[in-house]
């Protein structure tokens, strides 16, 4: 797609009490892509999303969402964006159908009855439409929230940690649905801190302490991180881990079942250290692919260093 990007923001900054929660974030999301928005808890993901939905006013920076100025055209953005909040924010004391009726009314969907009936049928909730939303399980709440967010056929969907507290099967189904929607031309921005979910995004943006520190496809991000990963196998992994701690070139040591992942930026130094320890402890080593998770943990560690 060669059209203007769905989201294009530059230098977005939001401060609370002097602390920059979102610091100079520049972000582009192309039309029709699923953009992952990653980062640890409290890194400013929710605030960034709220800024882009027009729910917060930025202290600095500018940008356009679906071609609308985020500072001035909040109303237009609200009409064309579906925003699914992190916490379930429909009315728990209303039934599923009443919640959908409410949303249909606010967006002026007509005929509302048909929209609601179709949505209920899509969800497979027609039989349970008189159930109070508050009594639904986490997975169903999430499906209801998603359905309510896309009922008005938005062009852009912003999902703030949509799968928190949802079981793996429901998560899988949720992502299948997201891909279906994207295939139909919907642009999706989804924040998460699950690595498997990040890998289902077309492109990812990693934010840490309010700063955007990495972006691109999963392969690009992994490649750009420039990490070397070595896996150790053998009996004395505990001893190996102890010896590797603080060794030259070693940044991360993480046990994975019967193996030990050792990650570092300085590939040569890392290999030297690991070979020495392998010889000392009688463990075998072989090179491995760096995973996205390795990259993120590295990024998180770096960000903390910057803070200090």
């Amino acid at each position, binding site marked *: 797609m060669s059209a203007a990007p769905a989201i294009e923001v530059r230098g977005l900054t939001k401060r609370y009490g002097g602390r920059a929660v979102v610091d100079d974030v520049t972000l582009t999301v192309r039309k029709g892509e699923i953009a992952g928005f990653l980062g640890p808890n409290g890194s400013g993901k929710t605030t960034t999303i709220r800024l882009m939905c027009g729910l917060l006013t930025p202290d600095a920076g500018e940008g356009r969402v679906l071609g609308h100025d985020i500072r001035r055209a909040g*109303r237009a953005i*609200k009409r064309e964006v579906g925003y699914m909040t992190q916490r379930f924010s429909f009315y728990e004391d*209303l039934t599923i159908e009443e919640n959908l009726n409410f949303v249909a009314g606010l967006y002026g969907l007509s005929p509302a009855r048909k929209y609601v009936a179709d949505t209920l049928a899509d969800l497979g909730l027609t039989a349970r439409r008189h159930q109070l939303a508050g009594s639904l399980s986490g997975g169903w709440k999430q499906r209801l929230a998603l359905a309510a967010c896309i009922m008005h056929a938005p062009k852009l969907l912003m999902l703030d940690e949509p799968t928190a507290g949802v079981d793996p099967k429901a998560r899988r189904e949720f992502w299948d649905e997201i891909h279906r929607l994207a295939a139909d031309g919907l642009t999706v921005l989804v924040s998460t801190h699950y690595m498997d979910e990040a890998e289902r995004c077309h492109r990812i943006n990693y934010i840490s302490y309010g700063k955007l520190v990495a972006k691109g496809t999963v392969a690009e991000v992994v490649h750009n991180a420039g990490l070397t990963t070595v896996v150790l196998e053998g009996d004395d992994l505990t001893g190996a881990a102890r010896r590797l701690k603080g060794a030259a070139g070693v940044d991360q040591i993480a046990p994975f079942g019967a193996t030990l992942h050792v990650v570092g930026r300085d590939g040569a130094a890392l290999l030297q250290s690991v070979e020495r320890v392998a010889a000392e402890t009688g463990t075998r080593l072989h090179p491995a692919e760096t995973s996205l998770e390795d990259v993120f943990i590295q990024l998180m560690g770096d960000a903390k260093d910057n803070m200090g």
Partner: protein
Amino acid sequence: MNRFFSIRRLAALLAKELIQMRRDRITFAMMLGIPLIQLILFGFAINSDPKGLPAALVAPTQDRYSRAIVSALELTGYYRFTHPAASAAEAEQLITKGDVAFVVTVPSDFGRRVERGDYPQILIEADATDPAVASGAISTLGTVAAEALLRERGTEAEAASDAARQLQVTVHKRYNPEGITQYNIVPGLLGVILQMTMVMMTSMALTREVERGTMENLLSMPATPIEIMLGKVLPYLGVGAVQVAVVLIAAKLIFDVPFVGALPLLLAGVFIFVASLVILGYLISTASRTQMQAMQLTFFFFLPSLLLSGFMFPYRGMPQWAQVLGEIFPLTHFLRLIRAVMLKGSDHAGVAQPMAALVVFVTVFATLALLRFRRTLD
């Protein structure tokens, strides 16, 4: 569809609010039950003109004159002589302990003085710790005693010296000739009950959405501030209408309060008053972050308005600055309005001033609320 106001959107907000109200059974029951219970409770309980107050009589010589005075006092209804033959010391104890509200002392030379025409005196000591209790009883004293004496002596001869006594002070309690407190209390109660329930319920309206996290969602959808305000305010206006009906019917059936004035005028006044309360509640709601804060703000407003509006204490009895302060409460103006219409039968012109004041409140509160409303989560 209009950019800033759409009936569809408002209808959706209203429907949602009504369903929530219906689901919240306890609150809903409170909204209807509280007015009735309070009306009956306070309507019967509050009495600013108490009668049958216990009294002690100290009269060493019980002659016909002292008996005449005593029976005349009893006939006023204010005095009930529970201790008709007390000694001075006993009487002193009784009033100190609060067993009696009055001590009437008739000196032993009272009869002689009356016969001689020599300024007969009686002493009435009142327990004035609560001035309201004694005021009615005291105000009737002078004339009652004088009349009793005149009747007893049955003389017209001493016209000159008795002229002063014969000067009868007529207290004419207009609009409420029998001094029935409920005529004053019940219409006032309508205002107080409405104020309490309306302001409190509405003050929770927005903060509840904020606390439950639904505000973020509501704001991310295309509803405008005025729609959100009306969506919150109108349902409570409806509840207010039901409360008004309940209280007015009860006032008529249970307390037999007269409706002298025009009902439409009364209802118009009540409507504007309720509107001002509901919007005030909404304003509080925009200013507080939690329901607890909203509740505190409501009470902060509630108590002074109760005390300074003229509901609890006579407005005219307050010092000038307090009267000025009282003007800032809608309740003050509403009390004037409802008492004027219900009891005095005032017409439009008669209540134009309080009515205008209430309209000003509605306008000011609504403007402030819309200005204060945060369209964003900042």
